[in-house]
């Protein structure tokens, strides 16, 4: 292959080669690997950049203070899921408090608090209904209706009514009695 017949890499392509040679198209990579001019250009730029890093490192002052680690050994520190002792204590107390509140409210929550008005209403209805039954009279009509129907006259008793209109059974019995007397006689 005649690399000297191919165009040399441009400035941008040289920079691209310094950044990452594998990003170049394969013909350019191939040219770069064989062309001394392009290779030198790339090397020069890469060397300048490397030199910059070398000088920077060389002229940086030396740290006079060493790094100090805390006295307490990391392995011996008490920790649970990265929580310190005080945080763990606080978390434990919080959980205990939540459990206590939960347990305390369990008996209250077993009574259907939400339906209290319903069951008290039912109880009241039962009570008044039973009271009405207890107070119920044989003739429960109000006085005015009793007067109209004649039920309120004290002289007209049941005995009197039986006298006026004897019941059918009584009549038959009396007739039967009178007949028996007749046969006996």
């Amino acid at each position, binding site marked *: 292959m005649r690399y000297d017949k191919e165009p040399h890499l441009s400035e941008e392509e040289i920079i691209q080669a*310094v950044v990452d040679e594998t990003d170049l198209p394969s013909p350019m990579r191939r040219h770069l690997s064989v062309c001394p001019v392009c290779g030198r250009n790339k090397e020069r730029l890469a060397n*300048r950049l490397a*030199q*910059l890093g070398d000088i920077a*490192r060389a*002229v940086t002052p030396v*740290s006079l203070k*060493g790094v100090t*680690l805390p006295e307490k050994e990391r392995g011996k520190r008490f920790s649970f899921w990265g929580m310190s002792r005080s945080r763990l204590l606080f978390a434990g107390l919080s959980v205990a408090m939540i459990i206590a509140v939960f347990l305390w409210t369990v008996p209250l929550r077993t009574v259907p608090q939400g339906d209290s008005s319903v069951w008290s209403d039912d109880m009241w209805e039962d009570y008044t209904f039973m009271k009405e039954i207890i107070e119920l009279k044989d003739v429960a009509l109000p006085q005015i209706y009793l007067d109209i129907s004649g039920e309120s006259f004290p002289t007209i008793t049941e005995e009197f009514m039986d006298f006026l209109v004897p019941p059918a059974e009584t009549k038959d019995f009396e007739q039967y009695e009178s007949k028996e007397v007749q046969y006996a006689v």
Partner: protein
Amino acid sequence: MAVGVSQDRQHWEFDTARSESHETILVRMAKAGDREAFCRLVEFYEKSIFRLVYYRTYSQMDSEDLSQEIFLKAFEKLSNLREPRHFRQWLFKIALNRVRDFKRKMKMPLFSGSDTGNEAEEKIHEKGYYNPEAHASMNRVEFWAQLRTFLKKLSHREREVFLLRFVDELHISEIAEVLKKSESTVKTHLYRAIHKFKNEQDFVAFLQGGIHEV
């Protein structure tokens, strides 16, 4: 307890700790509560983290304090690291977040005005956070000045990607993980940053000349 080299660790070859598998073992041991293993990790990354902070604050004192805080945070949060293989990226991420918080706090009183990020940063340096006199040679001063001038011309993301790649020496995949960006996004920012770097003729010429150490 200062993290120093104990007698046991003197026999330790830190070069071997560079291998990912060894580092992973150390991270696993540290996660299990092995303080010594974490100390080895600190020793291994102490310089890198200090430098990372220094390139972004230009203050030795702040870099020392922030490095301390970064490792303390890593020590405390190590149990949260799910994948020990990604310790390096995880540590750098903590460091970058801490530096960002620090810079935000430093800029806070300046928010009342119309300062841009760069102007605010300039004021921070004027307040004495950047102390070029601390450096031994003029070449060093010149280097930091040139680097700062160049970095100011980059956007925030370009600057971060450029520093992570060429100064902190992270791979593109690692940068993507640290910044939570896709690799193609990282490459795009890097491409733009290098393009700007290439056009900084004075800075490039300065680097070409090298730095003569005192």
